[in-house]
């Protein structure tokens, strides 16, 4: 009885060892860690991206307007798109819908968001109008994200800028309008000055 027990234990142990020995982890030597740009060699994994591959994904719009496509829309065209595709969630004039309030200015251009129950909107909080194009093109309308044509996105942007009193009713909005617009909140944004240590910021 005792002998069989020892025997089976020994078998089990040998089995474990042989599994360990045959495991493919034996050669786990990794290349030296790579430190900083230009350091180390290439691993040779991955392949060069084609221009089409990059173009298909690289549709972001920068704060300088880089990446804005060709196209334009009048505020009237835009309001039609806005009423058809956006108003149900954001309200007919950019307020009062079930989702984010998009329109509204604070009298005297105040910025009381840390002290009062003020609603942030495109007109009173957003530093760049380019963000509007970038975000709507990718993420709106929420029930069919990314479904608008570039012309329709220009229209939606025109409508929202108009509802925020940032362009006139007869405006035509294109890449130059969007990149050139200095939003009311542009200079409100400051870098993070928290840095640890005893001071509460």
């Amino acid at each position, binding site marked *: 009885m005792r002998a069989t027990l020892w025997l089976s234990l020994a078998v089990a142990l040998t089995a474990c060892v042989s599994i360990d020995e045959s495991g493919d982890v034996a050669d786990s030597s990794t290349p030296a860690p790579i430190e900083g740009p230009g350091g180390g060699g290439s691993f040779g994994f991955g392949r060069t991206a084609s221009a089409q591959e990059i173009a298909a994904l690289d549709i972001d719009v920068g704060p300088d307007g880089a990446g804005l496509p060709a196209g334009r829309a009048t505020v009237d065209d835009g309001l039609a798109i806005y009423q058809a595709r956006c108003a149900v969630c954001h309200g007919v004039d950019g307020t009062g819908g079930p989702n984010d309030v998009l329109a509204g200015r604070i009298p005297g251009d105040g910025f009381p968001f840390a002290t009062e129950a003020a609603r942030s909107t495109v007109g009173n909080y957003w530093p760049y109008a380019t963000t509007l194009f970038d975000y709507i093109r990718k993420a709106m309308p929420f029930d069919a994200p990314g479904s608008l044509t570039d012309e329709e996105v220009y229209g939606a942007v025109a409508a929202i800028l108009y509802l925020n009193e940032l362009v006139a009713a007869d405006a035509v909005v294109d890449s130059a309008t969007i990149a050139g617009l200095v939003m009311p909140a542009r200079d409100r944004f400051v870098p993070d*000055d928290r840095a640890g240590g005893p001071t*509460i910021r």
Partner: protein
Amino acid sequence: MTDSGDSISRRSLLAGAAAAAGSAITARVLRADGAEAAAQAGPDPTKVPGDRPQVLGSRSPHETPEKLISSSIGGVTRTPLQDLYGTITPADLHFERHHHGIPRIEPEAYRLLIHGMVDRPMVFTLDELRRFPSVTRTYFLECSGNGGAGYSETPRADVSPQQLDGLLSGSEWTGVPVKTLFAEVGAHADASWFLAEGSDAAVMARSVPVEKAWDDALIAYAQNGEAIRPEQGYPARLLLPGWEGNANVKWVRRLELSDRPFMTRDETSRYSDPLKDGTARIFSFEMDAKSLITYPAHPVRLEGPGWVGITGYAWTGRGRIARVELSLDGGATWASASLQEPVLPKALTRFSFGWRWDGEPAHLMSRAVDETGYVQPTVAEMQAARGPRSRYHYNTIRGWKVGADGTIGFATV
């Protein structure tokens, strides 16, 4: 509708409290009465054959921790902090904060594109990402909107740790350092930012300073020893240790190097922090030191005077927790709690403190101090610095008031 997912619906509050109260009552009855315990125990397990093992393990049917789903349209669930031990959150209980749901991504179709200010724009498959030298590290992840309900001198009392601060979890992550990938594509030395973009319906996008890549950023594909789960970014996500949850872009499909930030919606309109001087802090990535007592906490009720093992979590995005201090009298006096070793940087640290409750009302508080000397502030201190309505980064001191009847409610000072 809130942006940061910090609203708690009345219904979920009540449901959570009722469930927790129910299990507390059962536990009490079992402990109090040995005969009843025997009656409920079922047949003697030493006298019947045991169950066969299964291909996948499962929790004991008696352990039913659950995430708390909130009504947010994009998707929000909270981790049941009060039900957990140690410092690792089981992956299926990790909090979620999505901006447009969880995408379904085929691993074979997955590609990570890295382009912009690089020598050679490249695409990597999932298999290729997994072949690079990997690192495994333990980090916390917290939504920067976590705990907004605590940013008040008169918060509601009937909230549990999960309801209050459940947008917090801790995991062991495995992935390839972003710096390895940046070296592979030949990142230009003058690139100062990169855009990280997800392939969810929100196309979540955040600008990240390149220094973070040269420091400790990861493209993570595994969590707690297994492939990342869909709701955590399967098959791969960006991980920025110690930085606000939103910037840790899930389902990451693209990194674009640049010499300026991109000013996306979720780093301007959202996840920027208005300040009382009429400015707003932008790119406020780091999570300041914070701590929370998870036991005893609402809706637990202390049965009577006696020994209570106070415990909870402390964490900081700036490195290691240096110490956690405990107060039993609403902040008048403080004593050091013990920290569970090892204390890892940018990871959850478990603290504990033995307390003999005399049955008198008490006000328990914890205060984290990190290795930079930062001390978790009071609500008053934070409101004085930022303003009472400032958004995000709610790391003020949390407290629980214990009544003479043993009931517990959330209370700050």
